[in-house]
């Protein structure tokens, strides 16, 4: 029932936003999956972005009311492009929130041509760093996570033999490549690398293969409902070893799964108790959803706030809010004060952030190793 209240609340926010747009307002776009198997993510990302809008409006950070125009990408490239075209050409937004590697790669050329900024806060494939000047990432890409995670697992925790289950998409493959490189470097060994299709739902026999390999630790590189299915079925089928993953495990579906308890995963370092912005977001998020905020909440909140900061600067100097100016301003700005501390963009439009390691404890996860920068 909490869920219903949450939805009602979101509806109310949207009503408010829609009412505001009737007058003069500043609009940004969101090209997120709102239906289909990955809609869970769109829901989470959208709610976090909305919280940022609410805060920006409450604090009157911009001269006009800010609102988000949501479009459904269904997490597929074609729908993503249709939605992006609508945002760019009809709604004429200068700034679009994006998610999912396939969608991001498909919409990046559209944004590049129209000089509209797209910002990714969910996809972690390293190829997302190479999509042109107008494609930014506010999430550290997966290679950074693995470079912190691999030495931690092998050297500090002593898990020498690692079995990997990875989904056959760019993110999964990137993780496989990074682990293969960094685990031996840290003195460990990959004992199994099992690739699974994206739509697979049965992992009983994968569990058998994992058991046969006899690892100290099983690394799961999937996302969405599938990663929860993998965890449950491994635990059900005699795999009792330590589990680990990348930041996808910060999804509430996994953190609240009893079978996932004790699993280790990296996220960008976010201290939700830090006074000011982080604390406020954590408090309001909890009040709204009844859940602890996770890294995705920080990312999409931050993505909107990056826009707000840039727009503030542009308004001050009297320049119009175009994608071109936003890009120029970002290069001029240097760093941003956001949830989780200062954030700085690398020249390629992605960010480098300290990575922390968490353990699932039934809540949103507890930190077991503080923020470290990837080498």
């Amino acid at each position, binding site marked *: 029932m909490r869920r219903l209240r949450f939805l009602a609340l979101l509806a109310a926010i949207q009503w408010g936003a829609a009412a505001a747009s009737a007058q003069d307002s500043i609009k940004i776009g969101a090209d997120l999956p709102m239906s289909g198997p990955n809609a869970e993510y769109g829901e989470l990302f959208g709610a976090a972005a909305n919280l940022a809008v609410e805060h920006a409006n409450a604090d009157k950070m911009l001269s006009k009311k800010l609102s988000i125009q949501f479009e459904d990408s269904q997490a597929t490239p074609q729908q993503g492009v249709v939605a992006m075209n609508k945002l*760019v050409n009809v709604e004429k937004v200068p700034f679009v929130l994006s998610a999912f590697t396939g969608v991001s790669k498909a919409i990046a050329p559209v944004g590049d041509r129209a000089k509209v900024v797209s910002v990714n806060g969910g996809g972690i494939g390293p190829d997302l760093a190479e999509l042109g000047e107008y494609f930014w990432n506010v999430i550290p890409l997966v290679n950074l996570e693995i470079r912190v995670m691999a030495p931690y697992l092998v050297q500090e925790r002593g898990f020498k033999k690692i079995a990997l289950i990875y989904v056959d998409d760019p993110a999964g493959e990137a993780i496989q490549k990074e682990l293969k490189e960094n685990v031996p470097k840290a003195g460990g060994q990959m004992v199994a690398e099992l690739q699974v299709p994206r739509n697979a739902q049965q992992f009983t026999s994968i569990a058998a293969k994992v058991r046969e390999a006899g690892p100290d630790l099983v690394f799961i590189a999937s996302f969405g409902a599938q990663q929860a299915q993998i965890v449950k079925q491994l635990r059900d089928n005699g795999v009792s070893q330590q589990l680990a993953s990348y930041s996808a495990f910060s999804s509430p579906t996994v953190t609240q799964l009893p079978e996932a308890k004790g699993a280790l995963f990296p996220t960008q370092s976010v201290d939700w108790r830090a006074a000011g912005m982080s604390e406020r977001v954590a408090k309001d998020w909890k009040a709204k959803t009844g859940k602890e905020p996770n890294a995705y909440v920080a990312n999409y909140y931050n993505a909107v706030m990056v826009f707000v900061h840039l727009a503030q600067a542009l308004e001050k100097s009297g320049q119009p809010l175009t994608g071109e100016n936003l890009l120029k301003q970002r290069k001029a700005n240097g760093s941003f004060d956001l949830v989780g501390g200062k954030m700085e963009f690398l020249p390629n439009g992605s960010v480098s952030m300290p990575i922390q390691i968490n353990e699932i404890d039934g809540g949103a996860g507890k930190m077991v190793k503080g923020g470290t920068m990837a080498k």
Partner: protein
Amino acid sequence: MWAYIINLAVLISINAILAVTLNFILGYAGIFSIAHALFFGVGAYTATFFAMKFGAGFLSATAAGMALAALISLALALPALRVRGEYFVAASLGLQMLAVTVFTEWKSVTGGIGGLTNIPPARLFGFAVTQPEHFLLLSLACLGLIILVIRALVRSSFGRSLKAIRDDETAAWAYGKNVAVIKTTAVVVSSALAAVAGSLYAFYLSFINVESFVLDTSIQVMAMVIIGGTATLLGPVIGSVLILLLPAGLSYLPYLPVTEIGSIQQIIYGGAMVLLMIYRPGGLWGFQDTRSSRKGGAA
């Protein structure tokens, strides 16, 4: 707004090519394939491959895609000759699922789920087609040409043989028609023409990945044909306009709760499919045109 409409129009014309070519085997020959997205994909990947590796222009890249699609379609024609109706649905389903696995796993050629980016713009007679307006003209020209080809085929003696087989295969066979050759030709023609859509799609988006060539795409194309009206020339075109405009139009509905927009759109989309099938089972274009095309066929 203009650019948005052009974008939709390009996607509609590409999908209309798929619908029209599927209708050629589904409507006129009674071959119910749900593997059409496979040939769409083969066209797209082949054209991309030749454009990226050998700098092929639009015409030669498309021709390569058509040739390969025609070859692969023989694998589909094989069961089409042996079994009918629901068996064939299952056979094409099997092929479609296999194709998705191959598209996903053959990463050196298809890029897997990550797909292929930076596909160069289509080159036609030495000019690069980069303006969306020009691309729209190109895809409309392809669509028009394909409709003409199919119209000619349907009205020829070949088309009459096809319809005879659809209506009563045994009778057609007894009548001395070479059923095997006719059916195979129909499948090959339909698949090769579907590859044109793939080539256009790849050059237009300049990004393709396996997610565009999955079972859902096949089903969607079939829905276009059936909603528009099978065995009519324009029905499939109308069906594709409708199917693509529906979600686009629904996205303008105001005051939907933000996180439920997608689901509500999908529910309306599904509901429209059901209601249309109940109340307009002959398709939107179906009733008027069937009669006139029959007359045309008989003349």
